[in-house]
């Protein structure tokens, strides 16, 4: 029996007169792989932004099961939510472009290491120890995802698919319980998408975390996801296993049209 990790109830987001997300309730369980699909403009990314604190909710409640019990995420900043255990990637890659691959990963570890101001400016032994530990942890993570060879390159020099992979690695470096992937396969060729499919499974399995992805590539979604939410016009249209969703008449109508 899996327990609920994140529970969002009756989320509403209005942008002026436009309701981008209308009364959506979703929940993600521990170690689950969930897909969020829907036509363009259905409110998928807005829902991600609400859950990660990027945009404040108009109404509704979000709670996350953490080590210190269930916590409400309402009104928390993105940084606080990230510290509580939610990490994400972005639809249009947002790496720290001028910084090295290694630094991109080490930055995401900032909150897991304590290093006082005096320790770092005086370069006390603790500074060297913390730096060594951080670098070693980052190198381990890079090795798992085949990025060791490019560790000292600026992130902007990497090929597109590798940048997407680095963004996922950076998100994992924050040690999340819940990972949101916003269109991870966008702009990838079939071969890269197949690699990504393996990668997502590996993350769910090896890191024991919950992965939620927004994706338009149906072969990927139907392949990896255990459960799907379908959004349309800001509302929840359907939910269920990939097989159920493929048979759902309302979903077929939303995607293919018809009366």
């Amino acid at each position, binding site marked *: 029996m899996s327990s609920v990790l994140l529970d969002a109830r009756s989320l509403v987001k209005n942008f002026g007169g436009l309701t981008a997300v209308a009364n959506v309730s979703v929940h993600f369980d521990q170690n689950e792989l969930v897909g969020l699909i829907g036509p363009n403009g259905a409110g998928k990314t807005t829902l991600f932004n609400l859950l990660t604190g990027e945009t404040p909710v108009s109404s509704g409640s979000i709670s996350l099961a953490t080590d210190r019990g269930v916590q409400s995420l309402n009104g928390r900043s993105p*940084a606080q939510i990230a510290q509580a255990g939610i*990490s994400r990637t972005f639809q249009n890659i947002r790496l720290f*472009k001028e910084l090295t691959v290694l630094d991109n990963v080490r930055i995401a570890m900032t909150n897991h290491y304590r*290093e006082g101001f005096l320790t770092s400016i005086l370069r006390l032994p603790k500074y060297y120890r913390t730096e060594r530990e951080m670098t070693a942890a980052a190198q381990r993570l890079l090795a798992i995802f085949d990025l060791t060879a490019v560790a000292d390159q600026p992130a902007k020099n990497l090929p597109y698919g590798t940048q997407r992979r680095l963004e996922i690695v950076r998100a994992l470096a*924050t040690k999340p319980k819940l990972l949101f992937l916003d269109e991870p396969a966008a702009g990838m060729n079939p071969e890269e998408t197949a690699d990504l499919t393996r990668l997502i499974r590996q993350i769910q399995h090896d890191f024991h975390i919950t992965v939620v992805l927004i994706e338009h590539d149906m072969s990927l979604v139907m392949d990896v996801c255990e459960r799907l939410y379908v959004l349309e016009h800001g509302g929840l249209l359907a939910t269920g296993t990939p097989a159920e969703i493929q048979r759902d008449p309302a979903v077929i109508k939303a995607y293919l049209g018809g009366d």
Partner: protein
Amino acid sequence: MRFSSRVKSNLAWLGVMVSGFVIIDGLEVARVINPFIENMLVTIGINVILAVGLNLIIGFAGQFSLGHAGFMAIGAYATGIMTQTMSTPLGFFLSMGVGMVLAMVAAVIVGIPTLRLRGDYLAIATMGAAEIIRILINNLKITNGAAGLFNIPALVSWATVYVLMCVTTLVTVNFIHSRGGRAVMAVREDELAAGAMGINTTRWKLAAFVFGAATAAIGGSLHAAYIQTIAPDDFNIMASIAILIIVVLGGVGSITGTFVAAIVLSVLDTVLQNFGTIRMIIYSLALILIMIFKPTGLLGSWEFSFKRVFSRREVTSHE
């Protein structure tokens, strides 16, 4: 025993700093350095301190501040006022400490509302804040208003400036290469992504701003105690821009560049004094030419590193 490149690099920097001191001291004793050249050297030192701090704010934290002279003024006046009654070296360092604390408090007060602004807006807001500081000083009794302070005790020699320049630079560089420095650079690169990675963006931006303000106060204190006279107009917008020019010319995000630019500009300024009125034309022309042919500054974001030199040599010797 073989030393690691880290130990060798630290020793090399220590060597550079000590030999710099010994060379200048030797030239002083040999009377090669006259008061005129010493004045130039001290100006270089103070400019380095000011520009290193501003480079942390602009180049590493990515926050465009035009108010550096305001924080410099706080340090200068703290020293100018306090050393009137405490005319000892200890009194100077005490006044410098007070100046730093006051500048940091001012930076927190200015930073919290303004650091949410970006680019041009932040520049204008910080410029306004510096003007407020200047006008306050202009109208207070304790600062002697527009006339300023003179006969400030000469408690600072070139050696004090040299040592404080080394200390400020070391502390800044060490900060940049720490967890905090990387967090600050993450905010510069992409504030949204930094936040999503759990980095408290407001806190780190403010940290860099307050750090920069403290170094500006050090520069101000040294300026007051070396030049011995200060007036509110020494810390107007042109003073902020003069520091900005050093940062931009040397390369935004390069501490090495800041050193090079501070030296080049001071030497240029001194040499051109023989040219009379066309001095400013040549000076400005030099600035324009550098910006045309090297828009990222003399060194861009390149940084000299002994560690890299040593580890490269190790690699070649293995081959």
